[in-house]
């Protein structure tokens, strides 16, 4: 029984992590539930989970709705997913440090585009803060995800 519950929780963790991080949105630390992009990225590209991609796309859409950035994060996610699937030069599942650098690049480029679209210095500073904050949180999240997998 306990094994069944733990197996269920292990399977459900990627989905629950996205839901909880999106749901617990607060200004500054987790605006619009943006922290949900960490599990979205991790379980889509680094450690893929079956049926996670449509779920991730829905949550990107929900982040967009909260941010009032029409389809931006959804578009970026789909574009990265498509680009990653078509190429076979870089295997994201075998990246060093659970792909933290790839995640940083992904999030930085997306944030930079968002800042450029509505340019001002406050937006730029907020983007820098979020890139650093999400990059920092990615490492413990990846470690936790690894432990749960085992």
């Amino acid at each position, binding site marked *: 029984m306990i094994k069944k519950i733990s197996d269920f929780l292990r399977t459900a963790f990627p989905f*629950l992590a996205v*839901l*909880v991080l*999106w*749901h*617990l*949105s*607060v*200004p*500054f630390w987790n*605006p*619009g539930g*943006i922290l949900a992009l960490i599990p979205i990225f991790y379980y889509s590209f680094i450690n893929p989970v079956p049926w996670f*991609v449509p779920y991730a796309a*829905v*949550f990107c*859409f*929900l982040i967009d*709705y*909260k*941010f*009032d*950035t*029409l*389809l931006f994060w*959804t*578009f970026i996610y*789909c*574009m990265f*997913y*498509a*680009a*990653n*699937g*078509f190429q*076979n030069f870089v295997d994201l599942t075998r990246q060093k440090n659970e792909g933290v650098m790839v995640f940083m690049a992904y999030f930085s480029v997306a*944030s930079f585009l*968002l*800042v450029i679209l*509505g*340019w*001002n210095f*406050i*937006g730029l500073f*907020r*983007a820098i803060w*979020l890139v650093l904050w999400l990059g920092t949180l990615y490492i413990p999240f990846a470690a936790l995800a690894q432990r749960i997998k085992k």
Partner: protein
Amino acid sequence: MNQKKISSRVYSIVKSAITAAVLPVFLIYIMIDKPDYKIMNGLAKIVLPVAQWVGDGVTWPIHAIGKAASGIRELSTLRSENEELKVRLSDALRNKTECDIAISENQHLTQQLDIVKEIPQKSIVANITYNNEAFSHSTFFINKGYDSGVESGMAVVSFEGSLVGIVSDVAENFAKVRSLTDSKSNIPVRIAGSEVYGFLQGNGSNTPTIGFFSDPEFQPTRGLKLITSGIRGVLPNGIPIGEMTSHEDVNVVLPSKISDVIVLKFNSKDKYK
């Protein structure tokens, strides 16, 4: 084994191709459905409450702990707050007589000048449920939707009567409000007590900026009060907005500083876009 690898690669390419095919659909949609984006907003109104409901169920222990902690914090500050309120009440009572005189004089002047002040047709009290402030965007959700009579374009004010934002999208049980600090917010305003008009533009910071004055010789200074101008026809004339803190920055009520708001419906001539 090799065949398995090939089929997995083909499957991956098919999935990527499907995802890639979605991208031009998104681009075309963004171009054709503006400015209302009815399909996406309609979809969000179905998906968001479901995700919210499931999220509430999953995160209730976190919310319970958070509520308990904030309750304890509130209790600990209650005594000092009470003392402060007593001082403020005595100050307010002292000012009351002056205010009564000013109100009666104002009513008299309004009658003499034949000014018609617009009265809201409907007012709805709502709680702020989510404050989504990020990059240069600043929107927040309230817990009242079209079930309670909230409509797009309605003015959202604080309990003190200052404008906080405008309802930009409405669902059954919630509504999205664009705050004055959002970079997409641009409201025609008037300097209180004058006939000088300008535009209040949000920039993502806590202090939106004012510019494009109707009088080119007007010198904006700190301390001037701003009210809505009623020019665009969405908001009526005379809703307080805030106070200027420099020649262009305006101090407004931020959604992060309040928990409840009042949604007001006026007889608007134009639709909010």
